[in-house]
């Protein structure tokens, strides 16, 4: 019996074969992009360039006790970011502003923003400023090396200045989604300070990104910390929002 295959059937049978060169071309084109461009795409896949977000930071102690902080953050462009704690009560109203390498902390009792060194930690526990006032990775880091390992890229990132919390990052990224699955953070001496695991992808108004970032650190054995994104929304703000004068009013942007 002659085998007759319609044009439509042929197309149907061939499409996986057609997809192969397309995907190959796509990944080649991905690799043909400069490593810096790949890093920029990773940044855009994590957050819009300007946005507002709500996050919960959770410190889990070895004895099972946990502490939770809720943070409202607004960011604009490459180097403007402001955050305010909504809870717990002991931290409510503490706000931070970052303009490039300039950083200020506003404590409601003190009643005025004070300039802090950019490495100063603004919250206790495992979290540091890099967790709270993070700029895009491509702003703070340059790509030293890009390797492909199976279906993942491994980017070796080097801090552009000494004001960045971690001197070097090793970022493992899924090739298909260009989203990180793991980031290892190293100090200048090469010591591993912290590992971030990106989990539970979810759609947030236009972007699909991990909801949970789990952290462990050899410096704090037995402790674990989580950053849980409740909401990320692309939003533009006037430049005046990112000023010392406005810092005590950041919460009114909600």
């Amino acid at each position, binding site marked *: 019996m002659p085998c007759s295959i319609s044009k439509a059937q042929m197309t149907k049978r061939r499409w996986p074969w057609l997809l192969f060169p397309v995907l190959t071309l796509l990944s080649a084109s991905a690799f043909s992009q400069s490593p810096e461009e790949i890093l920029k795409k990773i940044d855009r896949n994590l957050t819009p360039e300007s946005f507002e977000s*709500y996050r*919960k930071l*959770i410190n*889990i*102690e070895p*004895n*099972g*006790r*946990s*502490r*939770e902080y*809720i943070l409202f953050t607004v960011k604009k462009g490459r180097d403007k970011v402001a955050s305010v704690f909504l*809870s*717990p*009560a*002991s931290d*409510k109203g503490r706000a931070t502003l970052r*303009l*490039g*390498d*300039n*950083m200020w902390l506003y*404590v*409601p*009792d*003190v*009643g*005025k923003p*004070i*300039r*802090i*060194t*950019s*490495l*100063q930690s603004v919250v*206790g526990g*495992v979290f540091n400023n890099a967790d709270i006032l993070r700029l895009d990775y491509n702003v703070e880091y340059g790509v030293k090396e890009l390797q492909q390992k199976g279906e993942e890229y491994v980017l070796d990132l080097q801090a552009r200045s*000494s*004001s960045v919390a971690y001197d070097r990052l090793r970022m493992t990224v899924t090739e298909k989604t260009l989203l990180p699955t793991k980031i290892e953070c190293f100090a200048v001496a090469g010591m591993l300070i912290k590992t971030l695991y990106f989990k539970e992808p979810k759609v947030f108004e236009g972007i699909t990104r991990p*909801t*949970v970032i789990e952290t462990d650190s050899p*410096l*704090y054995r*037995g*402790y674990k910390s*989580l950053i*849980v994104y*409740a*909401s990320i929304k692309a939003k533009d*703000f*006037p*430049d*005046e929002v*990112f*000023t*010392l*004068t*406005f810092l005590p*009013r950041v919460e*009114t942007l909600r």
Partner: protein
Amino acid sequence: MKLFAALLLFGVYLFQTPLALAQKEYEVDLSKLQKEIEKKPYALNGFFEFTPALLLLDQTSTIYDMQLADRHVGRAMDQYNSRLRLEGSYQRGFARLYAMGDGYLRNDDLGWSGRAHLFQGYLSLKFRPNTAVDVGKRVARWGKGYAWNPAAFIDRPKDMEDPQEALEGFTMLSADFTKSFTGRLKTLSFTPVILPVTKDLNDVLGKPGHINAAGKLYGLIWDTDVDLMFLVGSSRSVRYGLDFSRNLQANSEVHAEWAWLTSGESRATSSGLAGFRYLTADETTFIAEYYRNGPGLSEEEARDLYNNLGRGDFGDRSAQRLLGTQNLMRDYLYLRATKKEPFQILYLTPEISSIINLSDHSFLVLPGFTYNPVTNLQLRLRFGCLVGGANTEYGEKQTNYRLELRVRYFFQQP
């Protein structure tokens, strides 16, 4: 004394008792989180604080003579302080009402004492992010100094031992106009202020029956915060101020502040300070400030003051001056060191601070630590030691030593 010791032991117990729970897989309930971030138009928060303290008094000091000699107070004194601070706000559209109230109650060998204040209470209208108007009682907190702010013309003086604590404000009408730029000058902001002084309103600011004007021009230029301030009016002498703050490196900051008080009720004078903040690699923060207190007494004037008081004449202006100021003389140094979470003990911050009178070499030293054993509970154990000979500022204070445990519990709704 026994009660104080018992409370101290309770604090130490809280410090060292972790709950015996095993670490388990943590589950995040996103729907609960969505409810938690839901915005309410109102907010209420604050803290309750209990601070038992043990004081060892200096029965030979001038201030003891003036205040306690005839009140049958012994060398050691227990003191029990309670404080309630409440903050509330209500926001609707561009308008926000805010109030902060503070009440404290003290019991010691002198009996009961206490006071309730409205620290702040104002209406804030934010027309746009670059324009806002505030009317009511509020703090301005001008200046860049950590321990002192000579250019804070419209603020009450800080508590030298707790410079980060909230202060009572003044009733004023103020506005903020802000403009951002690209280039060397990144931000420019102007804050004009109107302050009336009457017998019942802002009376500590000077002569009543006048309306005073103040203003601050702020700029972020060449990555440096710069402020220019002024206060004009008939309640006080006209004064001008200038300050700046800048990060030298990622772990260091320098700041300075200067104030010029024109001749009014007393001679013209200027005050100023210069300081820095430095963070080491192991997260120890050092703060140092030198303060030149223009209106302060010279060594000769201070000697005359103590001689007058030594003759038992407590009714003249000398006595008022000694009791009414935190900085009697002209040259001071403030030093502070805090270490974040030593030995990887999370939420523990040891600290030591000192105020040194460089003219008479007397000083105050305050070692202690702060610990947050559980969310919203903060413990602070602090020892205070005042050192100085006869006729020196800290040598003539009524207390030699003080040990206190502050237990502060924070709450919020919603």
